[in-house]
């Protein structure tokens, strides 16, 4: 940047404003790490849960495999803390996206509790898929990132399909959901960062 007292014309002032706003807005802080962690954890838990239910005599206790998600929660807390320390700028986009995911976390906890008390376990999967779609689609819209938008829509389609899969195979619907909604976008974020 040149010295501060340079003569600016109206045109160059507007051009400067535009270029600086673009520099701030084009900043892409998402590197896909949390999408990948959660995507893989949910995919592994779903597959293990299904395999244990189908091919072993562990029975309902096989649901304990989901305890692995607590590991992901611990990692997320550690990662977010570390990431926050390294941040040199806070954008409104990042803040809104964070709140979208906080809303999702709270809603998921509540819906799991409500369904456990009042609903059926197959209904729980329909709601999980429905809720996966909301923050994923919204993050895609806010970041203008197509893979996430596609992922969100896929979760909603799978949520509707789950109504017709009233057997243990319903667990397997989580796998295409997280692969399309989180794992593929996660690797796309990685590729984008690498390219930049």
């Amino acid at each position, binding site marked *: *940047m*040149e*010295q*501060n*007292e*340079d003569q*600016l014309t*109206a*045109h160059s*002032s*507007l051009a*400067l*404003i535009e*270029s*600086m*706003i673009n*520099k*701030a*807005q084009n900043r892409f802080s998402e590197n896909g790490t949390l999408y990948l962690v959660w995507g893989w954890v949910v995919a592994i838990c779903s597959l293990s849960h299904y395999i244990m239910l189908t091919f072993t005599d562990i029975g309902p206790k096989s649901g304990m495999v989901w305890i692995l998600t607590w590991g992901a929660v611990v990692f997320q807390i550690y990662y977010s803390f570390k990431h926050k*320390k390294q*941040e*040199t*700028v*806070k*954008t*409104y986009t990042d*803040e809104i996206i964070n709140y979208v995911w906080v809303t999702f976390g709270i809603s998921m906890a509540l819906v799991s509790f409500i369904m456990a008390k009042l609903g059926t376990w197959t209904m729980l999967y329909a709601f999980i898929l429905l809720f996966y779609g909301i923050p994923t689609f919204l993050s895609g819209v806010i970041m203008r990132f197509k893979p996430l938008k596609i992922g969100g829509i896929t979760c909603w389609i799978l949520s509707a399909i789950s109504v017709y899969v009233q057997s243990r195979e319903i667990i397997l619907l989580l796998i295409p959901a997280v692969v399309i909604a989180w794992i593929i976008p996660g690797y796309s974020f990685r590729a984008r960062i690498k390219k930049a």
Partner: protein
Amino acid sequence: MFKELDPILHSQLRLAVMSLLISVKEAEFTFIREKTNATAGNLSVQVQKLKDAGYIEVVKQFKDNYPQTTCKVTPEGIKAFEDYVKALQEYLKV
């Protein structure tokens, strides 16, 4: 009759800093320096001028034992920036 352009904003580096800060919630001095390609000395002087005008808020603190300066645009700064852009638009008849 054209509005007079705000002299605080009608300067290349100060306008660049304000344009950056208007787009984000808050930014560290290092981020602003990187995006504006300004020298630390020049940027410090211009940031101080914007602060004195009440257009930005500057918070100095320590992060991991290193000094950290964070800048954030104030409501007065947003108003001044909007007026400046409106005045520019009048000049250009946008």
